[in-house]
């Protein structure tokens, strides 16, 4: 994203913060990204409750996840396998022995008054992820990936803003409490300077791509199955000592990751330049304003009084099991892309643009549904990309499936639709009018392929412009445009221009 994409409201919000270029001239940003991934297991981390998203409140709960007295947790073996899969794909070492720990805090989103997590013994540690940023690869070191459980969902009632402040009471739904999470923590990312916001976004996008390919999560940021906290600090340019960092939560889209990092750079620079100090605190990202606001002052790790979870025995994955999981890892997305590029015969530039637009899997699925690779690429990268861009969504978020795009492409190649009509069909699908064939039917968009209907229109056009026929006969073939234009007008654009041309020439003969 560039600043040009900011809305006027976002620009206004930036008024009281430093200019980005000035901030970068004076300070080096240090990034740290914590990404939570909800695992796509059928059941929760420590109990057999379902994990279906969007179920009615408190319909997926049991004595364990409600922390009723005497209930004992048991680890979900599949969740451990998924965590190891993520660790291996991130080039991490897998702990031969590790434990869960209790993270103690008072907040009603966990009925236990603690969250079961891992503390100093993560299942995976010391890895890296190579992140494509523009033409370069930035290697982000991974500190750790550990297992934990998600918390319940609270709704604050009575406050004007739906936040805790001013609320009279809160309502708790524990369906999400206990859903398996893997938290992936990067090491501090230094030296990215002005590209820090872009690197942050690219890292999360690459991680999303990777985790999705592993089949362990649907990584939907809009549904919270992938969430990102952006840690950011500034250090005076050239100074090796890190400044105080803030942790921005609630960053729920790739675009927001970039905006949140950018905003914090500008805000912190303005505080520091004015001689102020940065508080170590949690901040909240406001999607609408594009700004961050102060939350609570962060409790330190000591304050969570972590200790080993006595109710769960240690996890000690055997080397044999880890190697089995490694051997069964799917083709990594970038390796897959190289293979697809060869199969499809795309240039490096075409493939890179497609990758940056996160359209590779969409094209792959469109091709799998019967379309040619070139047609599929051109639909996703031009007309559909424009629609996604103007709606401010990702290609994958458009209300059209690869199979539907393939169907439209099929209708064009069979001559039932012209390119212009096909775009109208796509508009109809995007507007929720049904499958492409239904849209063609409802909007009456099929090409007028009935030769007698076309012939009638041509005859009428020739009769109305008698001089044109003479011009064509005398060799001025370009004059045929007037006839084609008239026929297209008469058929409301639903004729195939090439066909009209051919029939007209035959008529004049």
């Amino acid at each position: 994203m560039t600043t040009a994409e900011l809305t006027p409201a976002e620009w206004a919000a930036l008024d009281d913060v430093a200019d980005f270029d000035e901030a970068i001239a004076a300070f080096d940003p240090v990034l740290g990204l914590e990404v939570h991934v909800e695992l796509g297991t059928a059941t929760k981390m420590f109990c057999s409750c379902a994990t279906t998203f969007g179920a009615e409140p408190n319909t997926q709960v049991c004595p364990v996840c409600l922390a009723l007295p005497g209930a004992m947790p048991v680890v979900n073996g599949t969740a451990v396998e998924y965590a190891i899969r993520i660790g291996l794909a991130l080039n991490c070492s897998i702990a031969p022995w590790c434990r869960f720990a209790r993270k103690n805090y008072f907040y009603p989103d966990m009925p236990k008054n603690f969250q079961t997590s891992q503390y100093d013994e993560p299942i995976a540690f010391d890895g890296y992820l190579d992140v494509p940023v523009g033409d370069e690869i930035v290697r982000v070191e991974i500190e750790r990936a550990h297992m934990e459980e998600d918390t319940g969902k609270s709704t604050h009632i009575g406050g004007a803003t739906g936040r805790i402040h001013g609320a009279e009471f809160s309502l708790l739904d524990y369906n999400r409490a206990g859903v398996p999470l893997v938290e992936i923590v990067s090491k501090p990312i230094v030296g990215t300077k002005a590209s820090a916001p872009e690197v942050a976004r690219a890292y999360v996008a690459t991680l999303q791509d990777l985790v999705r390919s592993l089949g362990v999560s649907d990584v939907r940021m809009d549904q919270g199955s992938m969430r990102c906290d952006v840690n950011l600090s500034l250090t005076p340019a050239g100074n090796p000592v890190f400044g105080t960092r803030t942790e921005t939560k609630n960053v729920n889209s790739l675009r927001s990751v970039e905006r949140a990092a950018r905003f914090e750079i500008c805000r912190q620079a303005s505080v520091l330049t004015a001689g102020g100090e940065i508080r170590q605190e949690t901040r909240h990202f406001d999607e609408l304003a594009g700004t961050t606001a102060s939350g609570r002052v962060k409790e330190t790790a000591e304050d969570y009084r972590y200790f080993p979870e006595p109710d769960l025995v240690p996890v000690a994955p055997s080397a044999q099991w880890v190697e089995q999981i490694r051997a069964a890892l799917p083709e990594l997305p970038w390796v897959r892309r190289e293979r697809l590029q060869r199969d499809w015969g795309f240039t490096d530039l075409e493939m890179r643009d497609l990758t940056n637009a996160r359209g590779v899997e969409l094209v792959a699925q469109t091709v799998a549904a019967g379309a040619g690779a070139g047609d599929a690429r051109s639909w996703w990268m031009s007309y559909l990309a424009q629609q996604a861009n103007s709606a401010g969504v990702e290609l994958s978020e458009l209300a059209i499936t690869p199979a539907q795009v393939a169907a439209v492409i099929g209708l064009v190649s069979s001559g039932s639709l012209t390119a212009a009509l096909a775009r109208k069909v796509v508009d109809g699908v995007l507007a929720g009018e049904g499958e492409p064939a239904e849209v063609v039917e409802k909007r009456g968009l099929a090409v007028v392929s009935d030769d007698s209907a076309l012939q009638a229109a041509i005859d009428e056009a020739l009769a109305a412009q008698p001089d044109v026929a003479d011009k064509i006969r005398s060799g001025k073939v370009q004059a045929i445009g007037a006839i084609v234009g008239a026929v297209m007008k008469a058929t409301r654009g639903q004729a195939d221009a090439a066909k009209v041309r051919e029939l007209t020439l035959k008529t004049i003969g």
Partner: protein
Amino acid sequence: MSAVPSTEQVEPTGPGGTEHPTVSREDVAHLAHLARLAVADEELDRYAEQLDVILHSVAAVAAVAADDIEPTSHAVPLINVYREDVVRPGLTPEEALAMAPAADAGRFRVPQILGEEQ
């Protein structure tokens, strides 16, 4: 216990050490805040003293545990106890909420949350 730093794991002054209090008023005030307990100013010294006695009693264990003894977190030497990822019925919302002090619209209702923003 693990090697995790904790404000509660105050180092004893020595084997069974009793020389001077190792839990300060400030420690008690901090712990009270973490536990969201209102502890009156005059109670801080009293609790510091009492917690100190407890800590020193527990510290007696340190006097007999040699360096070659690993800290123990589990009483039984079991590892890798896993459950299959198969859904089993839990509680109905009615059963779950029947035990709650208050409920509203299928959810647990809790009083105003103070001093937190998550």
